């Protein structure tokens, strides 16, 4: 419905008419009341003056029995003034007539003519009783009371006069009001409304964007001029802003295009929900990998439909335990951490429409408005199927490495046991079994068996796939890792030089760090095997050093270093400089991932030339920096 606005002229007219009417009415009422009070006061004063004057004149006439004379005087007074009646009580005449007083006087009849007052006339007396004002004076001469004289004022005359005043006031008020309204209206129209009207005429002639075509000319009063100037400034400013806006719009459109392109072509699955979790948007990557179209999910489902139910239940229990309050296995589970403004990045398993399981690394962020209120969530998921595969391969490779190491470690004790067993057999065949030798041999066999068992425990620990985070000592972990790989190094005549004076305890996964150290030292071993001749000294240096950031672990070798041209690629998956028979290209990739993603640590590699025992060596140095929790 269109909003009907009232014309300024009409509004002004109403305001002027109302204001003038109210002011004039108040003025008229005030004048009327004043006039009325003045009339009443005048009437009373005149009446009193009249009756006092009359009393003086009547006194002698009363004394001289000149009844007709004072009657005439009374008539004259009533005629001359607005008196309703004058009544004289003449005690002298009363004595003559045998009454207390001879009562005479004049009264106005209904036709306003003056007639004799008749004391026995009920109507006359009623009229006197109803008079607005009356006053009585004694007529005294020489101390003798000759009679009384009473004056009566009717409000009829006053009312008539007041009615006339009302009519006159009304006429005058109406005329003055009309004139005032006219003058005010014309003046305001001329000085205010017309310039405004002119401005309106000009600003209504506008272009397709609704901006006035012409500038508003300066005219009228100072204020109107100021308004005109301000409006012109505003219009020009709007015109300039419009240009800027168009440019911004273009830029914004480009940015949106870029954003949309990023959204759709990032290679990540992106899903945006409202604050209740209902999916509002999902990018092409998500549609492609999950097999759902937008129409199937948007405004219908929460991302819960995309997750593995058993995983949801399991993680809700975990999170409930972690946060110490119940997290239900629904959409709340996904956003609980985001709502607490905590980094919310976890591995999940998506289930495609076709039922296929995809491991993803999902980062969920809360979307907030200017008031810092959450209006939705954005989930960015990376398909980590490949990484998982690498991890698996890496683990297998590590296991192979471990088995090789175990083989190395087992070879000597098994050899010892075999030798003792052969010795015992030989002595048995020679019937030369000596109990004391036998006990020593058994003790040696048990010791070697224990060593074998310990080696298996180490292996078990390594292959144990646990997600439990522990408080781990970097130095201790290094020693554990080296205890596994040392036999293999020793087998290749590689001397391990340790300097583990500094240590740091962090939260992490010990077996993953062991894998990191084994991978790096294995790579060093391979480099040494390949580049250092049999006669030359072979070294691997392992050193820890406290720094400002935390603790730096240096693992370096004298294997000659890495080619500078491939240095930047060595952490890429499947990149290897080794022969295919010994290198998979997964090891350093896993190292990088374990350190950066699971332990908040950084790793860099560079070639270093250094001196050891007065000899100069060159090799690769891996620097790992752990930060305290």
């Amino acid at each position, binding site marked *: 419905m269109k909003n009907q606005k009232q014309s300024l002229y009409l509004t002004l007219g109403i305001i002027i008419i109302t204001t003038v009417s109210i002011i004039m009415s108040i003025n008229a009422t005030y004048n009327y009341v004043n006039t009325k009070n003045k009339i009443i006061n005048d009437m009373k004063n005149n009446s009193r003056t009249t009756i006092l004057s009359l009393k003086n004149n009547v006194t002698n006439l009363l004394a*001289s*029995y*000149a*009844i*007709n004379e004072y009657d005439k005087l009374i008539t004259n007074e009533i005629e001359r003034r607005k008196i309703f009646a004058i009544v004289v009580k003449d005690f002298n*005449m009363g004595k003559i007539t045998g009454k207390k007083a001879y009562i005479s006087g004049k009264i106005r009849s209904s036709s306003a003519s003056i007639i*004799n007052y008749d004391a026995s006339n009920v109507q006359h007396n009623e009229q006197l009783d109803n008079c607005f004002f009356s006053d009585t004076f004694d007529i005294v001469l020489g101390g003798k009371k000759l009679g009384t004289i009473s004056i009566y004022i009717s409000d009829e005359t006053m009312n008539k006069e007041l009615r006339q005043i009302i009519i006159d006031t009304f006429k005058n008020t109406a005329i003055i009001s009309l004139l005032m309204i006219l003058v005010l209206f014309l003046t305001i129209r001329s000085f205010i409304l017309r310039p405004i009207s002119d401005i309106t005429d000009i600003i209504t002639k506008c272009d397709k964007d609704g901006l006035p075509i012409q500038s508003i000319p300066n005219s009228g009063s100072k204020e109107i001029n100021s308004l005109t100037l301000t409006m012109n400034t505003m219009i020009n400013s709007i015109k300039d802003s419009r240009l800027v806006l168009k440019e911004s719009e273009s830029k914004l459109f480009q940015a949106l295009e870029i954003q949309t392109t990023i959204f759709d072509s990032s290679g990540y699955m992106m899903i945006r929900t409202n604050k209740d979790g209902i999916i509002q948007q999902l990018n092409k990557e998500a549609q492609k990998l999950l097999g759902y179209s937008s129409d199937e999910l948007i405004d219908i489902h929460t991302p819960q439909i995309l997750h593995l139910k058993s995983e949801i239940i399991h993680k809700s229990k975990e999170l409930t335990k972690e946060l110490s309050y119940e997290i239900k296995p629904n959409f709340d589970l996904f956003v609980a951490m985001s709502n607490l403004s905590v980094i919310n990045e976890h591995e999940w398993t998506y289930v495609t429409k076709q039922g296929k399981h995809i491991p993803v690394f999902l980062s969920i962020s809360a979307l907030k408005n200017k008031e810092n209120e959450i209006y939705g969530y954005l989930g960015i998921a990376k398909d980590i199927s490949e990484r998982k595969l690498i991890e698996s391969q890496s683990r297998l490779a590590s296991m192979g490495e471990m088995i090789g190491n175990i083989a190395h470690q087992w070879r000597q004790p098994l050899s010892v046991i075999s030798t003792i067993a052969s010795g015992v057999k030989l002595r048995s065949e020679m019937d030369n079994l000596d109990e004391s030798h036998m006990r020593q041999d058994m003790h040696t066999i048990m010791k070697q068996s224990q060593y074998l068992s310990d080696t298996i425990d180490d292996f078990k620990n390594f292959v144990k796939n646990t997600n439990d985070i522990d408080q781990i000592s970097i130095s201790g972990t290094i020693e554990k890792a080296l205890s596994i790989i040392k036999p293999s190094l020793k087998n290749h005549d590689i001397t391990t030089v340790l300097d583990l004076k500094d240590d740091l305890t962090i939260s992490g996964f010990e077996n993953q760090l062991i894998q990191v150290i084994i991978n790096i030292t294995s790579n060093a071993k391979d480099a040494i095997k390949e580049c250092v001749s049999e006669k030359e000294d072979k070294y691997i240096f392992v050193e820890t050093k406290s720094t400002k950031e935390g603790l730096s672990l240096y693992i370096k070798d004298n294997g000659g270093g890495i080619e500078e041209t491939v240095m930047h690629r060595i952490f890429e998956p499947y990149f290897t400089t080794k022969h295919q028979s010994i290198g998979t290209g997964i090891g350093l990739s896993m190292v990088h991932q374990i350190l950066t993603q699971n332990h908040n640590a950084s790793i860099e590699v560079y070639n270093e030339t250094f001196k050891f025992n007065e000899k100069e060596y060159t090799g690769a140095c891996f620097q790992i920096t752990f930060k305290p929790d």
Partner: protein
Amino acid sequence: MTVFKYLIMLLLFSILSFTHASSTNNAKTNLHKQKKLAYIVSDIRIPFWKIMAKGIKNASDSLGYDFEIYDAQNSAKKELEVTIKAIQDNVSGIIVSPTNSSACVTILKLAQNAGIPVVVADIGADSGEYVSYISSNNRQGAYEIGKVLVKKMREKNWQNGLVGIIAIPQKRLNGQERTAGFMHALDEANIKGADIKQFIKWTEEETYNYSKEMINNYPNLRAIWLQTSNLYDGALRAIKDLGKKDEIILIAFDAEPVFLDLIPKGVIIGSGMQQPYLMGEEAATTMGKHLNGQKVEKNIQLPILTISTDNIAKKLPLIHRNVLGME
């Protein structure tokens, strides 16, 4: 039995009705006005009123009314008292010659309230209800006597001389009319007036002083007109004392018995004589007619006798009866 009972009741009703009618008639008789006329007069000692009373009495007798004079003795209070007395006497009618026309209004009001008709004889009333007002035609009378003076002055070739007037109070209507009629006659003859003095004290001394003043103040004064009769001697003495006996004419209004001697001698050359006896008779007759239910005129003006040296002998019988009341 029932019929008898009704007859008894009818008889009793008739007797009661008769008794009631009788008593009502008696009451009416008692309430009925006495067949009496009252004459309320301002002062009966004044001959004019005494003569008028005679005329009223004569006519009342003829009409069969009792007559009583209620003398106010020239007192307003007494006048009101006698008016109340006349009303209380329940007279048939009142003829009033009031102390003044204003006082007459009160008399008329009181009489009207009592339901007594009033005929005003001379003086008049400022207002009020009355049956008839009997008065002299003062204007005409004064005019006529003025003409007598004009004739006399022309005879003496004194038409260029001035005429002074010693007047009754000009507040009174009769005074105003007398002056107007007299001046009219002078105007017609183109004779100028000198001065007009009004009686205040009503004494011969006052008349003497006024006359003397005018004679002294106006050397060309040829005549003095007295608007009344009884104070004539003051004027005559002044004229005589100032040695103007043959140079100033005296003319008067109304009459004194002595005028029957003075006018023929030319001491007073003439007088306009009201006829109080005739006025009294006319007042009573008019009242009689009114009381008999006849229609009467509201204003009756009786002529004034213009008496001069030339006609006094001829008019003497009329003067005796109507002016002086000599029956």
